C-alpha cells in the first residue's frame, strides 16, 4: 500500500510538471507579452525595462524556473484585465465554481443512482428501455443548448428564475440543471450496468434464500458491490464539471472560475489564463489521486 501511495504521488507530480510546462508554453507561444502590455508609443528603453522586470530577457529554462518558483510561493503575477494579483482573484471566484459543480454532482447522484438501481434490477423492462434511451438523450444534449432553453422557458418566458448572475439559491437552479444533465445520464447508465451485472451473481441467490427482502438485497449487497465504477466516475465527473462550468458560467454570468477563464481569454489576459489552467489542472489531478487512493476502502479486494 505504501509503495502504491508513493508511486501514485510521484505520478501526480509528473503530471503536474507536464501541465506547468504547458501552461508556461502557453504564454511563450502567444508572442511578446510586453507588446501587449505597453502602449504603442512606448519607447524601446521602456520596453527593455519592463522586459527585464518580467524576467523576459532571461533564457527560456530560467524563465520556466522563475515561473515555477513564483507559482510555488503563490505568486502567479498580475492579471492584466482585472489589474490585481492573479491568485487572490482566482481564490475569490473558485468557491462559486465548486458550489455549482457540487450541486450538479449531487443532482446527478440523487437522480442517477436510484434510477440506475431501479432499471438495473428490471433488465429489459419497459422502464429499463425508456430510461436507457432517456439517459442516452441527456448525454447527447449540449449543456449550452439546455442553458439557452432554460433561460427561454423559465427565465424570459415564465419569469420564475433569474437569467444570470449570482446571489440566493434561485440563481443556482438553472446553471445546475444545465451542467448536470450529462452527468445524470452517465451516472444512470453506469449504475444500471453495475447493478444489472451484480444481480446475476450467486450471492444474490444466497441472500434471497436467506429470506432477505429484495430491497435489502438491492441496497445492502448489490448497490455496494456495483458502486465502484460509479464512485470513480462521479469523482472524475466532478473534474469534468469544473471544466464544463466554463460554458455554463459564461451563459449565466455566474462569476466563478470558468467565467473568469473566458473573461481572461477574451481579454488575452495570459497570466490569468495560465494560472487558471494550472489551478484547475491541479484540482483535477488531486481528485484523481483521491479516487485511486480511496478506491481501496470501497473495494477491500483491491490490494496494492
Amino acid at each position, binding site marked *: 500500500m505504501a509503495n502504491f501511495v508513493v508511486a501514485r504521488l510521484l505520478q501526480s507530480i*509528473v503530471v503536474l510538471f507536464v501541465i506547468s510546462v*504547458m*501552461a508556461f508554453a*502557453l504564454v511563450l507561444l502567444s508572442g511578446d507579452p510586453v507588446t501587449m502590455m505597453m502602449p504603442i508609443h512606448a519607447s524601446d528603453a521602456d520596453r527593455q525595462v519592463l522586459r527585464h522586470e518580467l524576467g523576459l530577457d532571461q533564457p527560456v529554462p530560467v524563465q520556466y524556473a522563475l515561473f515555477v518558483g513564483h507559482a510555488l510561493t503563490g505568486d502567479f503575477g498580475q492579471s492584466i484585465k482585472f489589474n490585481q494579483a492573479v491568485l487572490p482573484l482566482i481564490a475569490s471566484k473558485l468557491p462559486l465554481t465548486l458550489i455549482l459543480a457540487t450541486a450538479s454532482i449531487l443532482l446527478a447522484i440523487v437522480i442517477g443512482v436510484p434510477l440506475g438501481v431501479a432499471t438495473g434490477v428490471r433488465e429489459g423492462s419497459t422502464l429499463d428501455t425508456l430510461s436507457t434511451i432517456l439517459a*442516452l438523450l441527456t448525454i447527447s444534449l449540449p449543456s449550452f443548448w439546455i442553458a439557452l432553453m432554460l433561460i427561454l422557458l423559465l427565465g424570459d418566458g415564465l419569469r420564475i428564475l433569474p437569467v444570470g448572475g449570482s446571489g440566493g439559491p434561485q440563481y443556482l437552479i438553472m446553471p445546475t440543471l444545465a451542467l448536470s444533465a450529462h452527468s445524470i445520464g452517465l451516472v444512470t447508465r453506469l449504475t444500471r450496468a453495475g447493478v444489472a451485472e451484480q444481480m*446475476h451473481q450467486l450471492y444474490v441467490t444466497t441472500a434471497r434464500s436467506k429470506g432477505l427482502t429484495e430491497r435489502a438485497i438491492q441496497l445492502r449487497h448489490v448497490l455496494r458491490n456495483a458502486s465502484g465504477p460509479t464512485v470513480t466516475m462521479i469523482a472524475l465527473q466532478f473534474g469534468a464539471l469544473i471544466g464544463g462550468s466554463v460554458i455554463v458560467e459564461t451563459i449565466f454570468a455566474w462569476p466563478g472560475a470558468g467565467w473568469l477563464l473566458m473573461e481572461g481569454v477574451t481579454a488575452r489576459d495570459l497570466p490569468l489564463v495560465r494560472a487558471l489552467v494550472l489551478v484547475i489542472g491541479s484540482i*483535477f489531478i488531486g481528485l484523481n489521486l483521491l479516487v485511486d487512493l480511496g478506491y481501496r476502502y470501497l473495494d477491500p479486494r483491491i490490494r496494492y
Partner: protein
Amino acid sequence: MTESAVAAPPASIPASTSATAEASRRGRRLPLRGQIGLAMTVVVVLVAIAAPLLAPHPFDDQELSRSLLPPAWLKGADPAYPLGTDYQGRDLLSRVIFGARTSLAVGGAAVVLAGLIGVTLGLLAGFWRGWTDDVLMRLADAQLAFPPIVLAVGVLSVVGPSPTTIVLLLGVMGWVQYARVVRGQTLTLRESEFVTAARAMGASSSRILLRHILPNALGPVLVIAALNMSAMILAEASLSFLGLGVRPPIPAWGSMLSEARDVFAIAWWTAVFPGLAIIWTVFGINLLGDAWRSPFSQ
C-alpha cells in the same frame, strides 16, 4: 471463502458461453434503437452531402431587411424562409443544412486523427512493452488527468481558432481511449499462435504488427470511433459556441447558437433549430454506437 472459490468457476462458464452466443446472435442484427440511430445518422450524412441541393438559399446570403423573420407557420413569416432567419437575415434552414457539413467534417477528421495516433501508439505500447509501454501509458494518464475543455480554451486563446486548429486539438487530445484498447488487444494477440507462426516464418515486426495484429485489433476501435464521433461533434459545437471554434461565415451549429445568444429572447427559433440539429446528430450516433457496442462488451 473456499466455498465460493470452488463454486465460482462452474457457474461462470455457462454464463459466459450463453453471453457469447447471445452476442453473436445479436451481432447479426442491430436492435431497434440501433436501427433508428443508424437511420438518423444516415439522414445527417445525406443532408451534408446534398447540402447545396437541399438548401433553399446560400448560407451566407445576408439582408438586414429580413432580419429575424419567424418560421413559416407563424404570423409575419415569409414562406421562402421555412425556419425563419437570423439577425443578419440569413436563412436558418440553409445554415442548419450546411452546418451538417461542418460538424461531420470537423468531427470526422478529429476522430480519424485521434484514431491514427491512438492506434499507432497502442500497437507500439502493446507490442514492445517495457519502457515504451510505461511512458505511453503514463502519458495517457497525464492526458486524462486534465479537463479537455480547459486545455482547449487555453490553447485556442493563444493559437487562434480555425477548423484546422480544432481538428488538430481534438485529435491530439482524443487518442487515449484508442491507445488503451488497442494496447490491450495487442498484448493478447502478440501471444497468439498465428503471431508465433508468422514470426517463425521470418516475418518482420512491422509486418506482424500491420498484417497480423492490427486487423484483429480493429473491431473494438470502430465501436470507439462511433461513440467518439458524437463526443467530437459536441466538443466542436461547444468550442464554436464559446467563439473558439469554427467562426462565421462558415456555418456551424455551435457558432449559430453563439450568435443566437443576443437575440433568442425575441427570436427563439435562432436558438432552437441549430440545437435540435446537434441533438439529432449526436443522439443518432449515440444510439447507433451504443447498440453496436453491446455485442462487443459482453
